[in-house]
């Protein structure tokens, strides 16, 4: 067949097909339903996500490269697909109450969330530069629009414009790096690139270094690592809260998947170079993110800086670049997704009346009014800070352990020190919730939001107490990435 697909290969793409058709269905439903049927549209989107999940379970991880080497259907990709699917589902679940509070229509919103998820799917399984890039673009464009969807709010407009301009700029840098890679190796396929790069005589080393730096810089924008993080606080603050949550977890997870694929799979023989780059990025992100978070009074901005710091922690795994390091990254990403979404769920709860509810003082006395929510928030914050028995602790423990094992003791020390610093600003929120007098309107817990919080809470606690299954999954996934980097393991 001329298009390069055989019918049996099409079956592996079932989840993507379901998601695409479902997203189009949501768009059509929005065009024909009345504007006030938010619940129906969001419900339909959740059904689409559930169907996609079922299709994912049916396809599983056949460990096949399909579509003439464009997509790799392996456990690594599956791990990330499930992760972003869960993130998208929790995001949509908490979106219902938020959209109602903001009087926003749900149609375009749900469609764009699904479109972003579709883009992430291709970022997770793409093993060819252009496929990965198109996935990234699909996701990014959806997020640019989503960030500005609070149309009457100037902050939201600002967020969209900033995100769009810096995003386009970073994509340009990334694309330039990719085109250099293509020019040097004559292929956009990561496997072929790895083989070509492995032969240093054939490829111009200085130019290759430029390509690696450009690619890493472009990707660092997407994961909001210092010094490419400038967009994050403003975008996080301005975007609708559930979207902020989705950007901070989904976009980050998918970008890390892409990052791992490109550098670990495509550039194993440049490992020394990118290790150094990520080492620097990691230390800068952790330190700058945590220090900047200390002074924030706005909870959304604080979580933005905290997510920059988390990008720093996550980069430790890639510096180690051992199977254990990568699997620790996957574990931490899964844990981070749950706790971050939970924390943003509390922010959605605080959106009441005319108050945006994103200042720390808006949480004053939450324990008196909504004790369950306050306890949940406490768990999320402790987990973000890395206190046992939460999942955050297990994730950090495994991640820093991997760094020590790979011989990066100092990196682990910096990371632990940073975690201690971060506790200060997480606990400030706890202090506000417990010791201050409540003010403003009573926050109203809605069933959908309660369900979101309960799921995130359960995940954070269960993964903290019984992490074995997740660890096994992450290890299988990391191994399926199949790289030449860890052949000469230390």
């Amino acid at each position, binding site marked *: *067949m*001329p*298009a390069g697909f055989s019918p049996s290969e099409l079956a592996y793409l079932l989840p993507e097909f379901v998601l*695409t058709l479902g997203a*189009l269905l949501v*768009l*059509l439903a*929005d*065009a*024909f339903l*009345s*504007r006030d049927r938010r619940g129906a549209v969001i419900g339909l989107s959740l059904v689409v996500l559930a169907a996609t999940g079922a299709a994912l379970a049916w396809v599983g991880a056949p460990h096949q490269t399909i579509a003439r080497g464009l997509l790799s259907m392996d456990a690594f990709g599956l791990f990330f697909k499930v992760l972003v699917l869960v993130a998208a589902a929790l995001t949509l679940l908490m979106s219902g109450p938020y959209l109602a509070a903001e009087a926003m229509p749900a149609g375009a919103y749900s469609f764009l969330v699904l479109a972003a998820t579709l883009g992430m799917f291709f970022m997770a399984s793409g093993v060819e530069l252009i496929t990965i890039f198109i996935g990234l673009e699909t996701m990014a464009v959806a997020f640019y629009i989503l960030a500005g969807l609070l149309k*009457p709010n100037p902050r939201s407009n600002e967020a969209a414009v900033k995100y769009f301009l810096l995003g386009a700029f970073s994509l340009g840098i990334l694309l330039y790096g990719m085109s250099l890679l293509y020019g040097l190796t004559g292929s956009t396929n990561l496997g072929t690139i790895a083989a070509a790069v492995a032969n240093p005589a054939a490829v111009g080393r200085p130019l290759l270094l430029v390509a690696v730096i450009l690619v890493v810089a472009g990707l660092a924008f997407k994961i909001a690592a210092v010094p490419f993080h400038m967009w994050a606080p403003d975008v996080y603050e301005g975007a609708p809260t559930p979207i902020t949550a989705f950007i901070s977890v989904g976009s980050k997870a998918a970008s890390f998947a892409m990052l791992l694929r490109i550098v670990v799979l495509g550039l194993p023989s440049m490992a020394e170079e990118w290790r150094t780059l990520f080492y620097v990025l990691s230390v800068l992100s952790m330190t700058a993110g945590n220090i900047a978070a200390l002074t924030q009074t706005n909870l959304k901005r604080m979580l933005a800086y905290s997510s920059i710091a988390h990008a720093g922690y996550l980069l430790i795994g890639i510096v180690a670049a051992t199977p254990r390091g990568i699997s620790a990254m996957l574990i931490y990403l899964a844990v981070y997704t749950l706790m971050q979404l939970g924390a943003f769920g509390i922010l959605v709860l605080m959106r009441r009346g005319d108050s945006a509810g994103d200042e720390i003082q808006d949480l004053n006395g939450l324990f008196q009014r909504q004790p369950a929510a306050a306890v949940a928030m406490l768990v999320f914050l402790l987990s973000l800070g890395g206190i046992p028995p939460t999942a955050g602790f297990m994730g950090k423990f495994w991640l820093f352990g991997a760094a020590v094992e790979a011989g990066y003791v100092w990196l682990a020390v910096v990371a632990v020190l940073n975690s201690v610093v971060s506790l200060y600003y997480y606990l400030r929120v706890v202090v506000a919730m417990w010791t201050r007098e409540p003010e403003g309107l009573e926050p109203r817990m809605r069933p959908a939001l309660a369900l979101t919080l309960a799921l995130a809470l359960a995940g954070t606690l269960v993964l903290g107490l019984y992490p074995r299954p997740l660890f096994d999954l992450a290890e299988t996934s990391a191994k399926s990435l199949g790289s030449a980097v860890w052949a000469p393991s230390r």
Partner: protein
Amino acid sequence: MGWLGLLIMTGLGLGFAVVMILLSSLLGPKNPTPEKLAPYECGMPAVGDARERQSVKFYLVAMVFLLFDIEVAFLYPWAVALRDLGWTGFVQIVTFFLILVVGYIYIWRKGVLDWGPATTSAARAAARAMRERNAA
């Protein structure tokens, strides 16, 4: 003659236009007055600048055009190669069109194509919501 012919033709067109404009600026009279140099507004003194904000419709139509123009650009190579692609190619382009049609129905329902009064219930609802928001 191939591309060179196109170049010559472009050159001839350019030369003609430039020469004619130069000729008329050489031969024509020149006695400008402030009134002559003001923008023409049917004899009334011009108020304000012309380069103001225009209806958002024009921007919308430009954006929608971009999407559909890419579709048309896609069509040409496909049309030339159709006999080789066979029914597979046909199914592929129909799939492509169906995805595009969903977007088309969406913009139709949302009133992007209405330049006069809104013609769909969704577009009327959107217009009403905007009026209410502006009033508030």
